[in-house]
């Protein structure tokens, strides 16, 4: 089926792959980028858009620091190629607060001191937001299991669970009202 072959195939073998025009929708804003196909979503955020709130702790899916929401679902940005994230609605930690008003989970992270160094924190919060909206924040035990993809080497787990519980209570009361 040679007719189905995409134009890229025409490129001479061995030549440097062309940059791709990629359009990423992040926190409600469209960003047009010219990217090396190898660029991960995380590196596009950090190195190209200077949205450094999403952190890199491994680049291999093993720590959770890069967690962002894609079409409302939590994913690891380091395991996504940026070009394949085109057309998706991406939300990062920078897009969570409403202006000056922190998201309830951000506020409860401060209140509960749910971090030390703060480096895993963006990922914990984004994962926590999803954990609550998925309905997996019903008990501390549930939260622990459903947050286990986010390592905290400072060991703030106990406080993170408390912060998620607090925010879950807020969101269920606001949803009720």
């Amino acid at each position: 089926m040679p007719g189905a072959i995409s134009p890229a195939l025409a490129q001479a073998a061995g030549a440097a792959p062309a940059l791709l025009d990629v359009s990423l929708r992040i926190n409600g804003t469209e960003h047009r980028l010219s990217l090396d196909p190898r660029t991960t979503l995380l590196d596009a955020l950090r190195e190209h858009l200077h949205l450094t709130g999403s952190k890199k702790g491994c680049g291999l899916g093993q720590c959770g620091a890069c967690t962002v929401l894609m079409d409302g679902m939590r994913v690891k940005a380091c395991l996504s190629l940026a070009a394949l994230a085109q057309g998706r609605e991406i939300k990062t930690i920078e897009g969570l607060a409403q202006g000056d008003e922190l998201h309830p989970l951000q506020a409860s992270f401060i209140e509960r001191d749910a971090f030390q160094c703060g480096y895993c924190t963006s990922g914990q919060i984004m994962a926590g937001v999803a954990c609550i909206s998925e309905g997996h924040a019903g008990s501390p035990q549930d939260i622990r299991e459903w947050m286990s993809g986010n390592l905290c080497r400072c060991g703030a787990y106990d406080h993170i669970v408390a912060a998620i519980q607090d925010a879950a209570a807020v969101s269920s009361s606001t949803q009720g009202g």
Partner: protein
Amino acid sequence: MTAALIGKSVSRVDGRLKVTGAATYAAEFEVPNLAHAAVVRSIVANGRLASIDTAEAERAPGVIALVTHRNAPKLAYQPHKGLPDAAVGERLHVLQDDRVTHQGQPIALVVAETLEQAVYAAEVVRVTYRNEAAATDVAAVDPVLPTGKPAEWEIRRGEADSAFEQAEFRVDQTYVIPRENHNPIEMFATIASWEGDSLTLWDKTQWVHNVAEEIAAVFGIAAENVRVISPFVGGAFGSGLRCWPHVTLAALGARVDGRPVKLVLSRREMYYGVGYRPHTVQRVALGASRDGQLQAIRHEGHQETSTYEEFTEALLSATRFLHACPNVHTRHRIAPMHVHTPTYMRAPGEASGIYALESAMDELAVALSMDPVDLRLRNEPDRDEFKDLPFSSRSTKECYRAAAERFGWSQRTAEPRSMRDGRLLIGWGMASATYPMNYAPASALARLLPDGTAEVMSAASDMGPGTWTSMTQVAADTLGLPVERVKFTLGDTRLPRAPVHGGSMTMASVGSAVQAACRKAREDALARAGSNDLEEAMERLGQVIEATADVAPGDETKRFSMHAFGAVFVEVAVDPDLGETRVRRIVGAYGAGRVVNPKIARSQCIGGMIGGIGMALMEHSVVDPRNGRVTNANLAEYAVPVHADAPPVMDVIFVDEHDPHVNPLGVKGLGEIALVGVAPAIANAIFHATGKRVRELPITPDKLL
């Protein structure tokens, strides 16, 4: 006048920055015209570089510079030893010759336009080696005494050997802790930018001044010409104490290509580019009388180090004073290997040494059929028997009591395997903890502004324990201003010098300097304005009032032995069929002097407990004995605790302790002691649950089948 702020659970002043993603860590500074670097690292442990073929890499798109020992500028490498550097030996020189002494040694540096291009070009540099026999199996290396006076490494009080032989009850066992890596979630990163002979480094470090001095020495320039900026550190746990070779590489890359360069280590490189907690082997012999009086302690230990530096840590120090005993013999040795130099990792020395000592104490309690708390109480010293000095304060008894009571220890049945929950075996164990109070010279500057606010600064670091916040509290408290009116700044060599952010000494040292500077500034302002209200005084003066203060320890160390003490109690549940251990409860009680911010202090302590769970149950950098490679150099196969490993109950108790001797603030530090004692308490609880004594960490399921 505001109410006292020291002792208040103030929320972190940098909290908002951290929860919004706005805190900038080393790799995140926007520097124009930035190029990216990547490192080629050796895949042999010992030998010489036979050939380096850079042709393909140089042709790769985007490559700006490719540096190897063949074309690297000769670096000055003037002598410099910072406090965290090994006392004996010479630091690794990068790209200066063809010698390879360990796996992962940098052998080439690529600078390219983009991260992807740099990493790829590094991947296609082809290197061949002339291999030489390497010592990479720690079990096969004969330990030796470190360089220096043997009396420093072999310390005797009384006659331990004969006392041990004569003791009615004896324990003599060997305990092994494998290599562990700090694995902070932020990977090491440096951005280097030259302007003429001046260098700016945005770096992940626990000590900006040391980085400036080290890099100045490496490049042969004045330390004043190196500015180091490091406002946020994404965890370090000791790995950021030293200035590691990648900082030199970043600066070298920037020098060669003339543009600012960013170098971020990969997670795999984190196992080669920075140090680690060394593998230790310890033999502990305890002799006691029937009533549980210790009569002899012999504690020997050795640890891996590199061939080019002798790294040693305080492995056996606590053994000399933690428990009362007339006859003590400690001997510390090293096993030089073809590995890179280890370094301090959270509670260096104490965490490892006390694991062995407190495990042996538990074994002795079993031999004596005595409650382990009781055994410790019977051997409670009334002074430091090693230094022959009184303790400035020592709250071990209060810690045992408070933690035991909270834990419900009196309900424990002594017999192993006697407590159950369904088919699970329940075990209760405990251990003591201690960590020295460190206090080093520090400086701070306080600046009072006419609008009634204050700026306070010191080149300290905050890798997580809350320096930003606690210093703001101390300053606000001293000045009598609300926290919101005080802006504290740290992490920049332009600020007054602070000591290394390690050894749990920041609160004591920087805190005392901040307090002194603020006191001076306040007194000056009040005196000049003839007022006793600071805000009124500042308004009246209408000018900036500045004061700096330098603090340094006096002769307290000659008069007192100064340490924090603690006790850790743990409940585990072990599945006897499947070997799985879960920690259900941890109660830790600490006598650590004044607690500046209980909320943040609790975070430090639960963090230490989680670290201890990792150490006890899962952490292990698996070093291939055949070639020194770290087999599991990632975060999937190197297991650190996850959320689900956190015990449902974590209790932290600070016993009331007023210590007027340690430092002006009366603080002892918490960062390290929080980890000490956790691993032995867990190991002891596992013994109580199963009747099985595992003497090699981590206690994974296979060891309990």
